[in-house]
């Protein structure tokens, strides 16, 4: 049975891997496009402040700015490490 599955399994073509990776990275780039220029700095400085108190990784912090008609919401998500 295992052997049959192995034989039937089709190797994923490299072009479709490329396409999936590009769709993700381009969507990410476009999200950043409309953000104000200070966002990366703000992100870094917030991370610095948080790191003074808790050890977190770069990817444990997530910042986004959503704009509605008359107000903007700055959303900050930090995944804190579990207490040892």
């Amino acid at each position: 049975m295992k052997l049959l599955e192995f034989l039937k399994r089709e190797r994923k073509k490299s072009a479709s891997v490329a396409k999936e990776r590009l769709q993700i990275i381009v969507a990410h780039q476009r999200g950043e496009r409309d953000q104000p220029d200070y966002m990366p700095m703000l992100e870094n400085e917030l991370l610095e402040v948080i790191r003074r108190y808790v050890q977190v990784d770069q990817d444990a912090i997530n910042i986004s700015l959503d704009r509605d008609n008359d107000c903007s919401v700055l959303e900050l998500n930090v995944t804190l490490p579990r207490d040892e």
Partner: protein
Amino acid sequence: MAKIIVVTSGKGGVGKTTSAAAIATGLALRGNKTVVIDFDVGLRNLDLVMGCERRVVYDLINVIQGEAGLNQALIRDKRTENLHILPASQTRDKAALTPEGVEKALETLSQEYDFIVCDSPAGIEHGAQLAMYFADEAIVVTNPEVSSVRDSDRILGLLASKTRRAERSEPPVQEHLLITRYDPNRVTSGDMLTLEDVREILAINLVGLIPESEAVLRASNQGVPVVHDMDSDAGKAYADTVSRLLGEEVPLRFYGYQKKGLLSRMFGGGRR
């Protein structure tokens, strides 16, 4: 008033200068007064691809600094009527390229030409931003390959925000996708992004598809823009691209699988 077209890509080595030379030549061959400008200060190459490297006396920087008039710096193409080349400086500092200077030069050229083709340097720095700043249309040259597609998307972001049209809230720069070095056989075997993939990811209008072709290297070796080689796939594909830029509807060619014949297999002939 001339139409200003920037040929840009972000990534280097994807075929910007080849494309700028071929498209400018194609536009001139169709009877449009055309000037092609090299914006790659320090690394000029357009003169080589156009075959006029030994006739460069003055350049864009000389014009901007007031050391030479436009008419002294413009080089008349030997083969094609209606076509002029404005080379970049090989030695001067990039900072000499000022927005005011470029604007003035473009304005003067605009009075006399139908098309101004700006060959952008690679990257997204000063030179590249200045090459696109005054553009009405942009040709984004992209290889079907991950880093090129990603960089093209970055360039699209700049075209939408860092151009005169964007800053003045005028109608946006018209963006065209030009896919180069396309290898239909590798696409068929699943190892190269298809043209639909690239178009879907970048979401802009496709103006041309240039197949990987031996004619391109042959053309640059000789300093004759590949659009003169109308026996070659690439030459024909660039001519089609020019027609589309001029608003004609031309079906796409050269995207299908090419079966190799026995002779070309034995003697190693590739795409013409």
